[in-house]
């Protein structure tokens, strides 16, 4: 019991240290700025004329800003890795990795690193999207559009509560960011190249797309486009639960792969 407590203490302390390193940095602010620009680009690409702006609502504008696939929505995947793709490699080269493992042990370091990367990726996306929501609210936009909303993009949730809709979409975007960041971290452990690990998530995304076409995957629940940027099933609540479970599972599996690789490199 005492040993277990000690282990959790080490993990918690390491997470705090890693989070401190990630959040209190210029890159974190840069990341928020990049994400705000990304949101603006996605939203602006859906403006066709002045009349569109007059019809715009917080729900539809927010949706366009975070999931406009005909603009740059998919670039969320490499953007969130800017903060972390260098961190694993920098830790290794500066011997921080070796000393941290010596101090807290391999499982604690890896758990802390994966948690810190996932949490800070989630936080940065959550902050950027919340800033957007507040900006839209201050612009005096109506909450919902005047026309009836279809059963897509979690709009059924927005019919009941706009706040719930925004929270669901922010959680899904944040988990997408966490998955992408942990993927980049894991890939970095294999390739030892920051730039390659930065575009890794985007490659995996398109590779999955190709595999889904070749294997003729029948369900939207396994298509990354639907999971990351839209609603995979007709029921929005089930879609949200499915998408979050899917992304958390993949993130945990990637975290385990990262720990395995770091352990293999350090002890062989």
């Amino acid at each position, binding site marked *: 019991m005492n040993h277990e407590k000690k282990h959790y203490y080490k993990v918690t302390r390491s997470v705090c240290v890693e989070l401190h390193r990630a959040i209190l940095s210029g890159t974190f602010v840069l990341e928020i700025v990049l994400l705000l620009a990304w949101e603006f680009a996605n939203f602006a690409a859906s403006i066709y*004329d002045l009349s569109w702006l007059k019809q715009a609502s917080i729900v539809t504008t927010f949706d366009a800003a975070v999931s406009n696939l005909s603009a740059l929505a998919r670039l969320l995947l490499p953007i969130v890795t800017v903060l972390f793709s260098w961190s694993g490699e920098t830790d290794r080269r500066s011997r921080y990795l070796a000393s941290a493992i010596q101090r807290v042990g391999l499982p604690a370091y890896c758990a802390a690193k994966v948690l810190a990367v996932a949490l800070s990726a989630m936080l940065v996306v959550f902050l950027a999207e919340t800033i957007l929501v507040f900006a839209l609210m201050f612009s005096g936009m109506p909450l919902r559009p005047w026309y009836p909303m279809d059963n897509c993009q979690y709009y059924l949730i927005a019919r009941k509560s706009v706040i719930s809709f925004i929270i669901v979409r922010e959680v899904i975007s944040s988990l997408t960011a966490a998955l992408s960041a942990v993927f980049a971290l894991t890939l970095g452990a294999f390739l030892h190249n920051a730039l390659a690990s930065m575009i890794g998530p985007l490659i995996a995304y398109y590779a999955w797309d190709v595999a889904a076409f070749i294997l003729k995957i029948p369900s939207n629940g396994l298509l990354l486009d639907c999971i990351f940027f839209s609603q995979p099933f007709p029921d929005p609540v089930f879609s949200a639960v499915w998408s979050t479970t899917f992304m958390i599972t993949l993130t945990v599996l990637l975290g385990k792969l990262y720990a395995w690789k770091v352990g293999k490199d350090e002890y062989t």
Partner: protein
Amino acid sequence: MKVLSCCKINLMQWHINPKYAMVVAYLAFYMWTLTHGFVQFSRDMGYPVRPWLFPVFPSSVNLFVPVYLSYPVLISDAPFRNSHQQFVLLRLGKRNWILGQLLYLLVLSLVFTILMWLLTWMFLLPRLEWGLDWGKIIITSAYEHLADPYGVMTIMCESIENVKPLAATAWVFFMMVSVNFLLGEITLLCNLWSKKGLGAVLTVLLILMPFIIWVLAASPYAITKLSWLSPVSWLDRTMLLHSNQNKPSFLYAAIMTSVLNLLLATVSVGTIHKCNLDTEE
């Protein structure tokens, strides 16, 4: 010969550095997503596809920019100073070394352009037929947008109007090589003379400019004058020679990129002797 060997050393890095393979993989998967639908569309229509998607691709700015954003990954560490380069520098001298780097950037520009050209028709092979016209599939896709449900790239009708496919391909090919080289030179000079990373940021901004122009052109705050300052926009033929809209001409685009390329190359070679070249990892 010394310049060639310096260029060859950089080319040998392609085996070692995984970023090159990653970029090729990204381009291949992305282009497959954009083009494979044409095969089914062509089967359903009963006509073959012509290999002329390359010259119309830059007009679909929202699809072209994400592809082109992979180019800064290849050039972001120009002039490619790693631990081996110090010995190369000692043997070749600064002048030959920078000429070798410029030659490598030119080769890289050419290879990237050829790869893009190949990937625009490679996945169409089951239904591909060579011919000097645009072909029914591309024309139908551009004017009727019948291919849209197949998930293929959007073809702007303006991009195939009043031009032969071969001429359009030649233009985009020449401009892509020139612009790639220009972006490489900008990154190289920024990395030599200022903070590392600035070159990559500038290059990314230049690549994003066509998207910004596209977004703002659709909004009430149009600033089409930006197209005069955006070399990447000059790949898109529809952005050129619209005198009534005050857009740059073909001659302007060609001369501007050539002059800038020459100027930046001269600056690189002329100032390299003053540069402190510490080895970088």
